[in-house]
């Protein structure tokens, strides 16, 4: 072995400089760095600079914040660098980012009091190999959101893990041009949620042991409304049967325990190539906001439109459904099969259509080539004029494939 090679090995083995190999300005924060040192670094880092945490646990009693553009925050690995908020006393999140072109990778947020990583109003967000976890498992006292970009553009979340969020593990809200891929979300109320957002690709993820696996929602009364254009494909979505533990009063608290994919007032959604199995209430649920409640937002479109679910694999059977929405399903099944057997369908739709959209081909809910997946139109509000139906024939239609998201 040459002397040069030896030196390189020594450097590699002995270096504990978290900034090693980083180009440009880099501020190193090794285990033992004080909260003041960390927050000062987050304030004084120049645009485009890097903050590198070493391996180890960094405990915080306050939340952290970053307001400098182009910054990269990195750690030594999602199990090696741990930002621990177990003793957090102030701050509604672990870290708040209000800067553009933000990148974070290879570290963990544990036990934040509220949300873990909130990114507000940023253009350019990359989250990679980040772990967010509430260590005591699903509890209503856990923080609401894990990875939480809101009102952002050009968002990439990949190879990350979120466990225990009392609302959504990975939540992208009021944002545009989004890729959420190859993540694992488990034991949250919602595993992955795309809300009031446009142009999102959600693929290659594993969502299991949540209350609901993957949600695509549009809600009223928000500044950015009527999101459209989400592709949910090639995901593994199974056994999301964790009892809904959202604090009461939250919209996600209405997600029936045991939901694979839920679409709420969503528009232009293409669902394909997913494996969706073993859910108590629904492998796929499609509903309008109409059974949820009243709203005053006149610009809000409460009906799901242009939905295209095809070439997915559904499996598993269930003999019960949960929550108020599950109760609708139960009464519809009872109406159709008063003497049983009681079998929960794979795909449930509430049957509510905007009167203005009746007969508009481009807005239909199209469902085809999903193996032997069975179906139920709940015909909400289930009165004399509205009868539930299991017939999929009215949904034998196609929509053009949605284009991939290009960041």
């Amino acid at each position, binding site marked *: 072995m040459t002397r040069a090679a030896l030196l390189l090995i020594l450097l590699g083995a002995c270096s504990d400089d978290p*900034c090693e190999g980083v180009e440009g*300005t*880099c*501020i*190193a924060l090794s285990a033992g760095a004080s*909260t*003041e*040192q*960390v*927050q*000062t*670094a*987050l*304030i*004084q880092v120049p645009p485009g600079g890097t903050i590198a945490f070493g391996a180890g646990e960094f405990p915080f009693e*306050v*939340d952290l*914040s*970053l*307001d400098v553009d182009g910054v990269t925050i990195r750690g030594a690995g999602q199990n090696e660098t741990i930002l621990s908020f177990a003793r*957090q*006393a*102030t*701050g*509604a*999140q672990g870290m*708040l980012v*209000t800067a553009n072109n933000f990148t974070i990778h290879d570290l963990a947020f544990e036990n934040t*009091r*509220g*949300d873990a990583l909130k990114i*507000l*109003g940023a253009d350019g967000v990359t989250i990679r190999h980040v772990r967010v976890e509430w260590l005591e498992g699903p509890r*209503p*006292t856990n*923080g*609401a*959101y894990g990875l939480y970009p*809101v*009102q952002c553009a050009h968002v990439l979340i990949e190879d990350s893990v979120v466990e225990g969020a*009392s*609302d959504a593990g990975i939540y992208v*809200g*009021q944002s545009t041009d989004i890729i959420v891929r190859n993540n694992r979300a488990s034991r949250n109320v919602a595993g992955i949620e795309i809300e009031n957002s446009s142009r999102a690709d959600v693929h290659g993820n594993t969502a299991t042991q949540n209350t609901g696996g993957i949600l695509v929602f549009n*809600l009223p*009364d*928000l*500044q950015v409304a009527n999101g459209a254009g989400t592709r949910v494909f090639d995901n593994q979505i199974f056994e999301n049967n964790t009892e809904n533990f959202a*604090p*009461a*009063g*939250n*919209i996600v608290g209405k997600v029936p325990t045991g939901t694979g994919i839920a679409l709420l007032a969503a528009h232009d959604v293409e669902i394909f190539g997913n494996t969706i199995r073993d859910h108590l209430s629904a492998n796929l649920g499609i509903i309008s906001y109409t059974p949820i*409640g*009243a709203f*005053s937002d006149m610009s809000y479109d409460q009906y799901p439109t242009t939905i295209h679910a095809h070439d997915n694999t559904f499996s598993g059977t269930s003999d019960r459904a949960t929550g108020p929405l599950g109760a609708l399903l139960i009464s519809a099944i009872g109406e159709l099969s008063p003497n049983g057997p009681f079998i929960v369908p794979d795909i449930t739709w509430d049957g509510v259509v905007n009167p203005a959209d009746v007969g508009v081909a481009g807005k239909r809910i199209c469902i085809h080539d999903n193996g032997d997946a069975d179906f139920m139109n709940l015909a909400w509000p289930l009165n004399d004029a509205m009868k539930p139906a299991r017939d999929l024939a009215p949904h034998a239609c196609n929509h053009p494939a949605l284009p991939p998201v290009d960041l």
Partner: protein
Amino acid sequence: MTRRLLLLAALAACGGGGGDADCALPGDGPGVDPDGELCERLSSYRLFEDLAAQRPAEGLIPYDVATPLFSDYTTKLRFVWLPPGTTMTWHDTDAFALPVGAVVVKTFGYLHDRRDPSLGLRLLETRLLVRGTDSWRGVSYVYDEDGADARRAIAGAFVDASWIHDDGAERTNHYAVPNQNQCKNCHAAHDDTLDVLGPKARLLNRPGPEGSGVANQLQTLIDRGALAGAPPPASWPRGVAVMDPASGTLEERARAWLDVSCGHCHNARGGAARTSGLYLDLAQTDLHELGLCKAPVAAGRGSGGRRFGIVPGQPDASILVFRIESTEADVKMPELGRNLVDAEGVALIRQWIAQLPGSCP
């Protein structure tokens, strides 16, 4: 030495003191450089003739506001500096426009005994908002133990303090000094940039601080040439003092409290309304957007298991009341700037909600 090491060295040197003279503009009076380096020590700016006594230098104008934001029962002393020959410019509803070089100064302290202000004030911090050529900058200085000078706290700080409360009981607080980023959390009423909150017509339309001899602050500012563009006094917005029933109806006082406590974030251009869709500033006229029978969006545990922001007639069913009564980090509102409950403000909001007519579906 690499830049990184330099930074760490600078961190270690924080609080070292000394060598701070060049940061201020030359001269005898206040000398905050609007675009230059910020000083490490508050005394370097020469804003006060006697810093420990908070006696302002000549030209630093003390003022008071009709309804202050609750800040954990601290007493707040407010001052504004305008470069010679410049003025503030009137606005009917928003904060007055301040000229480049203006400095807004706010000192926080605890009265040793709230029943007897003459016993003095323990100084905690002084915050500066400095109007630079392009934007505002915020910075806080935390007082030394003896209150003689204060040091810059970029990353914030905690100060343990105690005082005798209105009822004669001793109270304590783990008082939080905000970090530099957190200035933006409240002072971002206008999009994404910092702005002042206090110098508004409706907040300044009142007598000056005790002992100032000022009968009306707006008139005095006009008289000394510090405020331009003011309409005739008859059209000035009234200053509602929330704790003074004589100054407004219950509705007016409750809305004034919400405006000052919440409206800086919960407004059409503020940060909080971006995720909640809840608008609590005075400009809001839609009761649903003010929270009436409005379901929460991203409240998490902050909902307290309650269904709507405000349930008319039922303060105990209203999320708003749950959050202003909480002291937990992820529940309490406002999020920042308080550890304690504003008992008097909560009582006012409860009283207001209790008499609202109607019900939620």
